[in-house]
């Protein structure tokens, strides 16, 4: 049985009160299940409900409906927080404390034993390349440096689950690269699962295994990234400019489109090894008259398509 690190069922948050009515719930019956050891990208335009979801999962705000489980425990379970690392969207820490002092407070809250605490703080500062600023007051830090300290406090306890809200915000290209390495390292070395929201789709595409797209509080789609981008399994497209090759391939194709005279586009299931072998054989025989082309869309175009479809559906 597959284990889920995060499960939500009909999760709803409505900020309306008797004083102030909002036009729609911030989060509308969100149901997602996130498998273990997965890097999960949580996408959506501004106001989609990403931060609301993350704050519910971290027990900071209460849902008005539905259920949420994190690491198999209810979202507001205090003890399970020891196994989670969290980075808020705009990290802010006590400005009068130094980086080391603030991380020491966090380490104490995470119940890291005294003898290990100092060593671990040095380690995480090294990971986020902030060792030389360890004694500096947090109030003097730039946005990028704060983000690095945020990442440091999030990985302090070698968490099983990292929940990160816009972690790439404020980081320069080097910082982004380093951050992606940290995330991948957490998954590789500590088998951590990562749940993060981001607007930088190229980075999401690069590191995520699974994604969800939200719009105006509603879930539009969720699943493995490759499956979603390949349109649910219509994996490989082959451009054919030979009638002989076409005759041999057409029987396996799920869909055949005539592009021009003597040129066809054949769409195949991705995971069929027999078809893959046949295609490779024909590529060898017919050279550039049989060309394999990935059918996968780029995440960016997929994202825009989904959002626009949803917005159009709401308009009609």
């Amino acid at each position, binding site marked *: 049985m597959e284990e889920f690190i995060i499960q939500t069922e009909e999760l709803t948050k409505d900020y309306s009160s008797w004083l102030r009515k909002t036009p729609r719930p911030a989060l509308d019956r969100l149901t997602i299940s996130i498998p273990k050891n997965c890097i999960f990208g949580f996408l959506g335009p501004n106001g989609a409900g990403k931060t609301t979801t993350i*704050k519910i999962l971290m027990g900071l705000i209460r849902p008005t409906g539905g259920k949420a489980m994190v690491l198999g425990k209810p979202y507001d379970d205090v*003890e399970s927080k020891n196994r989670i690392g969290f980075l808020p969207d*705009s990290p802010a820490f*006590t400005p009068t*404390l130094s980086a080391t002092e603030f991380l020491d407070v966090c380490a104490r809250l995470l119940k890291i034993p005294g003898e290990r605490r100092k060593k671990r703080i040095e380690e995480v500062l090294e990971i986020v390349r902030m060792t030389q600023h360890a004694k500096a007051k947090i109030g003097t830090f730039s946005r990028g440096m704060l983000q690095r300290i945020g990442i440091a406090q999030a990985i302090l306890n070698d968490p099983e689950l990292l929940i990160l809200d816009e972690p790439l915000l404020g980081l320069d290209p080097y910082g982004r690269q380093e951050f992606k390495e940290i995330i991948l390292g957490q998954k590789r070395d500590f088998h951590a699962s990562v749940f993060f929201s981001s607007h930088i789709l190229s980075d999401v595409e690069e590191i995520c295994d699974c994604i969800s797209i939200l719009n105006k509080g509603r879930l539009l789609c969720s699943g493995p990234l490759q499956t979603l981008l390949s349109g649910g399994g219509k994996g490989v497209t082959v451009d054919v400019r030979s009638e002989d090759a076409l005759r041999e391939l057409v029987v396996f194709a799920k869909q055949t489109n005539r592009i021009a005279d003597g040129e066809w586009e054949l769409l195949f299931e991705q995971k069929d090894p027999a078809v893959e072998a046949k295609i490779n054989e024909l590529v060898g025989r017919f050279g550039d008259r049989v060309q394999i082309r990935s059918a996968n869309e780029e995440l960016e175009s997929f994202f825009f398509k989904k959002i626009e479809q949803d917005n159009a559906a709401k308009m009609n």
Partner: protein
Amino acid sequence: MGEIIAIASGTWKNILRMKVVYFLIVCVWILVGIASMYEILTIGYHKPLMMDVSLVLNAIAASLTVLSVTFEIPRELRQGVAATLLTKSLGRTQYLAGKAVGICVAGAVICTLIAAGSFVIYSQTFAVTIAGTMLKAQLMLIISIIPMSAMAVFFATIFPEVVAPVLTILAIWFSYSTGILSHIPVLYGGILPNLDFFNFRSHAVYLHPIPGFYMILATLWGIAYALFLLMFTSFFFKAKDIK
């Protein structure tokens, strides 16, 4: 308990690192010293005046120290510092308790420094030793920070940082006036703490003994009131969305 100490340590470090705190302490010492110059105006009562001034100014310093938490908690909630801390293994009640303990420790350090300085000035100016009653009066003033801290945490949690300090200072002022207010049940129905329990200015000035049993009872009352108020605050804070 470790979580409470962690939050408390962050709070007291934060306060005790403010330069304005030491400026305040030096100002109080100067004002206490100046009391010795009022010999003529007070017709020779400048000695008790100095002790009275030191206790009054120490009470004001305690109130101002406590007031700092009414800025700190709403700011931490607004800026997201509280959100970062509360996503660790920290209950909301523990966060509030940590803040209250932190402010108590910071207040105790500041008031102890003021009291110690005042005693040095008093004994050097008048070449006398410090009476036990004076020590006890200053000690009770320091203990009064416990219910004051709980009040500040209550207002800081419920109200925004523009309103919370004003309400806190009003509540402290009312709490020192409960002797008068008790005759007006509408204004004082036992909800406000009675900080008059900790006020031994007249005993210190006129060297009347302060019974140890009374001091213990007042301390226990202060702790019980603070615990009650923190639990009450926690009830609201647990239901609050932290954005």
